[in-house]
């Protein structure tokens, strides 16, 4: 993660804040986000940053997230 040559950005999903609504999954134009299996303290299986190599740091996922739990860096 981060050492990828192709990525031009990076996101971080707040594991404890995510409510697993899945809105960010189809929002990502590069399909970088998937749903995880680990359950957080709220009882939801948080979304995970599955394919960091394709991330462009466009921040569309972060704008879509209703709980503002995605941070984006470029």
């Amino acid at each position: 993660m981060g050492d990828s040559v192709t990525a031009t950005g990076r996101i971080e999903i707040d594991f404890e804040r995510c409510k697993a609504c899945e809105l960010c999954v189809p929002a990502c134009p590069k399909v970088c986000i998937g749903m995880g299996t680990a359950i957080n303290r709220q009882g939801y299986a948080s979304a995970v940053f599955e394919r960091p190599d394709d991330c462009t740091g466009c921040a569309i996922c972060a704008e879509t997230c209703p709980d503002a739990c995605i941070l984006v860096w470029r």
Partner: protein
Amino acid sequence: MSAPPGKARFSKAVYARPRSLVDVKSHFCPGCHHGTIHKIVAECIDRYGLREKTIGVACVGCSVFLYDYIDVDVVESPHGRAPAVATGVKRAQPDKFVFTYQGDGDLAAIGTSEIIHAANRGENLSVIFVNNTTYGMTGGQMAPTTMLGQKTSTTPYGRDFRGDGYPIRMAELLAGLEGTAYSARVAVSTPAQIRKSKEAVRKAFEMQINGMGLSIVEFLSTCPTNWGMKPLDAQKRVLGEMSEYFPLGVFKERVQADFA
């Protein structure tokens, strides 16, 4: 989550939580658009540097917890009375920025009289109206904006116009009033719509800053819990059925104030 190793490489923050949005966990159900709309409002408050001079007015419903999530002073008003309370706040302190944040059971049902008269008087307020076609907090009863045929806990066989009337289009209704400066309907179901809705909220806030009159932005929102849908299916409903009955767009935009 520990800091990812890529931090040194991508160090420019492109998107972070707006400053005016308090860093707490919200009570909203997963996929509820209230969170997105809170974020848009907080971003617009940040954009105009209004945080220290804003007074929000919240009513009753899921929207009430505005005072926990947006870092501005908030007055809590009785059900539907936000435009009336906001009128008082704005008249007493005209240099403050005043906005109301209301749901559809609140603005379109019990508060119809207040919003219509506040708009007709041309009060210099901004109104954020969240239309999710149901009373979310109290258990999904029928609201005036409930779609025909929609099953709710008080219309178990679907809303029928013969007994329950038709859904009200508030943005168009208020656009017909002389005192309204800006009236728009937006949605937040796709990234493009989110950006357009930010534009609409910015316009609405500018109307108040320029003293043009009442500005209202109606958001089409989801209520996955009370609709009995997954968040993604609920978004599809907004894009399909709801956008057909409640067309998106700007219905009124005043270019010049009535008074010099």
